């Protein structure tokens, strides 16, 4: 197990390198560069060449990538070409915002999906099941940002502005400067709608998957055996059925991470949150190479680590699955 874990940890490195390399090459293959944006309209060719030299943009692309890697190995993520701010600093400020959003949205998703799926599977073909499956079908068909808009309409525009429509109040301890707002209550107010908007879609997907695999598990012989032994329905559902039904669900959750990152970008844009999503999309559109690299790096790491966590969850859910080096 430990050998397997180490092996997987080592495998993370080439994947992350590959993602960052592809992003690096792709970003630099776009015509034009940030130097033009930096210098404004009135600039001479000499100025541009000088600035390009300054940032090392005149060197071959692969060579530039190795320079970036070399600095990265020393803990230097580079600095934004347009603002001059260190990329690592920006990423660290924005990471907690996005992490909070994603973790809470997953919590929302699980809190809705597990009960809904259990009811749907245990009381199959009753009105409760039909309600759960219909709501789930509607849920998978609504894009996150439309759920966000509906929430805005209900709680920000309606209800005399119960919840704020944009902006952010930091969690105590994550505030990047002395002037920013921080506080638990304010944070909860700001994160509630985004987390729901992002979580509801996942919840719908999860409900459908989990219900289907619950139905399959309930039909298996060991569940019949458990019933024959006189075991109560509750431990059968939770210990035997749910745990085994979670395995395929967890796999799909892992595959959904790519969508979750997109969802975070969209939801952060809609609610004007200072998270990694807005950081990334702004950087990509402004072609701020260093910031884009920082964003690609943190996204790649998150993506790979979550997939690793998914694989390790299997051993918890099903002790028969053992990884050997």
């Amino acid at each position, binding site marked *: 197990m430990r050998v397997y874990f180490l092996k997987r940890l080592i495998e993370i490195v080439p994947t992350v390198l590959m993602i960052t390399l592809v992003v690096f090459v792709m970003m630099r293959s776009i015509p034009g560069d940030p130097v033009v944006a930096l210098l404004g309209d009135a600039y001479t060719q000499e100025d541009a060449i000088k600035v390009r030299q300054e940032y090392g943009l005149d060197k071959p692309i692969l060579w530039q990538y190795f320079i970036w890697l070399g600095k990265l190995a020393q803990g230097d993520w580079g600095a934004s070409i347009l603002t001059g701010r260190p990329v690592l600093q920006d990423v660290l400020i924005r990471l907690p915002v996005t992490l909070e959003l994603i973790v809470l949205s997953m919590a929302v998703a699980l809190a809705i999906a597990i009960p809904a799926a259990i009811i749907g599977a245990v009381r199959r073909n009753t009105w409760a099941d039909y309600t759960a499956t219909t709501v789930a079908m509607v849920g998978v068909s609504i894009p996150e940002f*439309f759920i966000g808009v509906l929430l805005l309409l209900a709680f920000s*525009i309606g209800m005399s502005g119960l919840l704020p429509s944009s902006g952010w109040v930091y969690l105590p301890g994550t505030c990047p400067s002395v002037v920013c707002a921080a506080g638990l209550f304010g944070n909860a107010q700001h994160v509630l709608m985004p987390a729901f908007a992002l979580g509801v879609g996942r919840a719908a997907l999860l409900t459908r998957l989990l219900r*289907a695999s619950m139905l399959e598990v309930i039909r298996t012989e060991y569940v019949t055996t458990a019933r024959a032994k006189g075991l109560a329905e509750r431990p059968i559902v939770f210990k035997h059925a749910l745990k085994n039904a979670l395995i395929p669900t967890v796999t799909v959750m892992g595959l959904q991470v790519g969508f979750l990152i997109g969802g975070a970008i969209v939801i952060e844009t809609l609610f004007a949150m200072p998270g990694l999503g807005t950081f990334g999309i702004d950087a990509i559109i402004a072609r701020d190479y260093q910031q884009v690299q920082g964003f690609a790096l943190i996204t790649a790491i998150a993506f790979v680590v979550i997939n690793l966590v998914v694989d390790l969850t299997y051993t918890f859910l099903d002790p028969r699955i053992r990884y050997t080096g």
Partner: protein
Amino acid sequence: MTERDPRVTATTRPTIRGGSTREVDLPAAVTWRPQEAAPSESPFMQGVRRLRKSATALVGLGIVVLLVVVAIFADVLAPYNPTVNDQTATFLRPTWEHPLGTDQLGRDMLSRIIHGTRISLLVGVSSVLLALFVGVPFGMIAGYYGGRIDRGIMRAMDLILAFPIYLLAIILMVIFTPTAGLIGTMKVTGAIAIVRIPIYARLVRGSVLSIKEKEYVEACRALGVRDPAILFRHVLPNCLAPIIVTTTLGIATSIIVEATLSFLGLGTQPPTPSWGWDLKANVAFIQANAWLSLFPGLAIFVTVLGFNLFGDGLRDALDPRLK
């Protein structure tokens, strides 16, 4: 099981020509069939019959057909030109003249929604078809030949899959530089197709891996049938069911991805009407004109729901094991 799954029937029946189970392929002497199977009904017809029984699938199909009609006849159906501004009629509330009101440039919202159907369906369907036409052959070749070819193709596919899909789609759109009109739509189509190719390659490779070990494929080889003929006439038809289902559901996903890219300002550019863009543009005015951002969102929702319902019904009808 035998009755419900066309692929199982194909192997339990005596097969003369490859995996075909059509009646005409069987000489009179060997018209033996499993007792449970409905006589003289092809697996395709069985699927159609099951599909017709499913109310949700029919509702889905109805929505899809309606949307296709709206998209084709958008010019006739739309009461106004969706791209002509009218500064004297901005932010009109819904009236008989403008059933869904007008936006900040005085454009009729209903007409924009109707024309937006085109972009949404065009990108949704064509990106999936494009991904299909690239992904399926790759998957077939990888699965059928195995070895070094398989490893090479699948490594390239894994490279794409290693990316969070939105990160890749967003960067591709920045590289393509979003524009308006048909060219702009084609760029979005291309970007979405690229990120979806591996899905089909993987799916088909998996099916081919099991089908190529079947006896009827072996029989074909023994008879000297060439590889392309085996692949297209015997292997491909037998992995069609999951492909069809994934394609229908994939259209729903592609439409959401298109709307999302549009929402981020990276889809088809204005003045071409696009639901995602309209939603985003009107969120700025949500305080006073809530209805404006409501309609494009509803349009996306109904479209995606239609394809999802139909896809779900197809899955139940074609491949019960995929449930």
